[in-house]
């Protein structure tokens, strides 16, 4: 080792971008915290306060899920999720294809379709439900319609992202063999994305099952309507019993769905 001090290479300075972003996020957090009236001491105090709702969580009533009405509402939730997901999945594939360059060579229709997708994606599930309850009245129908649009938002987005990264080779091969555009999409593009697409549909089913638990809060059918009923009566122990049982089911369905999705991809 030599005695002269070693010169380290200059320490890389964080880029102005990193500094700016970090600073921006801190400022944004402070502004937002003030907007919502965030106070740490208030938080601790409020969390510790006893209230009937939290008390219901302690005296939870597990049996509610098995009452005739709740069971029917649960089945309705399942049916709504299945129908909404299926209908959404069917229209999502062509829409995803037409909103990417691979599937739609025309710029203006593509841009219009993408803007439409962005609007659909910006509306949350409960808002869709609220809209359809206003439009077509209460029941399972607005629920199914809401889940249909919500599914479209999820599946189209994920599928379109996958389409942007597919192998272009088979597309050239299909064109070179004289296939029409639709034939090319069916034989060279769809087989490439089908496993991913099926996996997104299952994922969307999980989301829909979860969402359909709350659609009933605005009158769009399913188990949410029972939850809303107990909420109105202030019967919190039954409400939490129903909620926890339902989400145990959701966790099981999710576990099953993840198993299938792993095999698909």
């Amino acid at each position, binding site marked *: 080792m030599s005695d002269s001090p070693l010169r380290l290479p200059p320490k890389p300075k964080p880029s102005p971008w990193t500094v700016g972003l970090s600073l921006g996020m801190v400022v944004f957090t402070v502004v937002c915290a003030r907007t919502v009236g965030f106070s740490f001491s208030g938080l601790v105090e409020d969390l510790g306060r006893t209230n009937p709702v939290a008390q219901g969580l302690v005296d939870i009533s597990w049996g509610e899920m098995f009452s005739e009405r709740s069971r029917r509402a649960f089945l309705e939730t399942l049916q709504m999720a299945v129908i909404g997901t299926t209908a959404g999945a069917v229209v999502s594939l062509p829409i995803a294809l037409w909103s990417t360059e691979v599937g739609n060579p025309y710029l203006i229709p593509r841009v219009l379709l993408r803007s439409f997708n962005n609007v659909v994606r*910006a509306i949350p599930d409960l808002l869709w439900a609220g809209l359809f309850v206003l439009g077509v009245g209460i029941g*399972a129908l607005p629920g199914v319609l809401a889940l249909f649009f919500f599914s479209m938002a999820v599946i189209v987005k994920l599928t379109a992202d996958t389409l942007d990264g597919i192998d272009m080779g088979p597309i050239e091969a299909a064109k070179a063999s004289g296939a029409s555009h639709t034939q090319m999409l069916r034989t060279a593009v769809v087989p490439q994305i089908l496993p991913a697409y099926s996996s997104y549909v299952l994922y969307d089913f999980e989301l829909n099952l979860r969402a359909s638990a709350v659609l009933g809060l605005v009158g769009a059918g399913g188990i949410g309507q029972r939850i809303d009923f107990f909420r109105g009566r202030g019967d919190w122990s039954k409400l939490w019993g129903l909620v926890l049982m339902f989400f145990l089911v959701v*966790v099981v369905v999710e576990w099953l769905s993840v198993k299938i999705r792993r095999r698909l991809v």
Partner: protein
Amino acid sequence: MSSISTGAPVQLPSKPRDTFKLVVTTAFVVLFGWSAISVDLKWSRLLDAPADMYRLFKAMYSDIPWEELDRLAGLMWDSIAMAWVGTIMAAIFAVPLSFLAAENLVGRPIAWVTRQVFNVLRAVPEVILALLFVPMFGLTPMAGVLAIAVGSIGSLGKLFYEIIENIDSGPIEATDAVGAGRLQRLRWGVIPQVAPELTSFLLYRFEINIRASSVLGIVGAGGIGGVLADTVRFKEYGVAGLALIVVIVGTIIVDTISGAIRRRIVAGRTIDIGEAQMYAVDTGGLS
């Protein structure tokens, strides 16, 4: 000249059976058939739906109350702030919890239990959580913030523990070799590496949470959702229509900005690695 199609026919091998596909397809068909038939729904009503929706849109947009715009935009801002504070709070809670879910830190049983907690938290929608927090915090945005925060702990915690579990492998062996403890390793070996991904995921979660926070008001947890519930109750279709536009525009604006930052972060990362490699080559001559 002969052609490929002339000559004796050839025998294809027998088609293999794909049991997995068959089972999944059958299960789906049965499930769908049962749902479509037994659901309590008059399918004929579906035909009237377009006309119904058209009437609704006419009621909402024939006379837009623009004077309400300021108030609605302010409420949308509340929703955005709720989503951000909730996301940050979730991240703060998720870090210690994720230690309890990492198998290489606490062992299998505790990790398993913590993960199930994450799974359940991920499964419960924010609106349900808001039902719990509204009585504690009253009809304020804080109830919404807590609902968002608790709802996001599951997915952020999952991301964090996956990162922690990967500590033992790969390029961190160097810090291991100098005898660094696990937490030191986390601080110096892992966090600098994954910081861009973490930030990017946080922003992504924020985009998701905007959608949740804009409806939380329906159960009284603050933000623009409350207007939607009220206008529906009092049949103020004009206000509801404008609120819908505000939600859509606000969400798309946040999506666009957040998305641009995320893309920039991921793009910037590759440059950072390039610089690091440059320095690594330079220092190589010193030893």
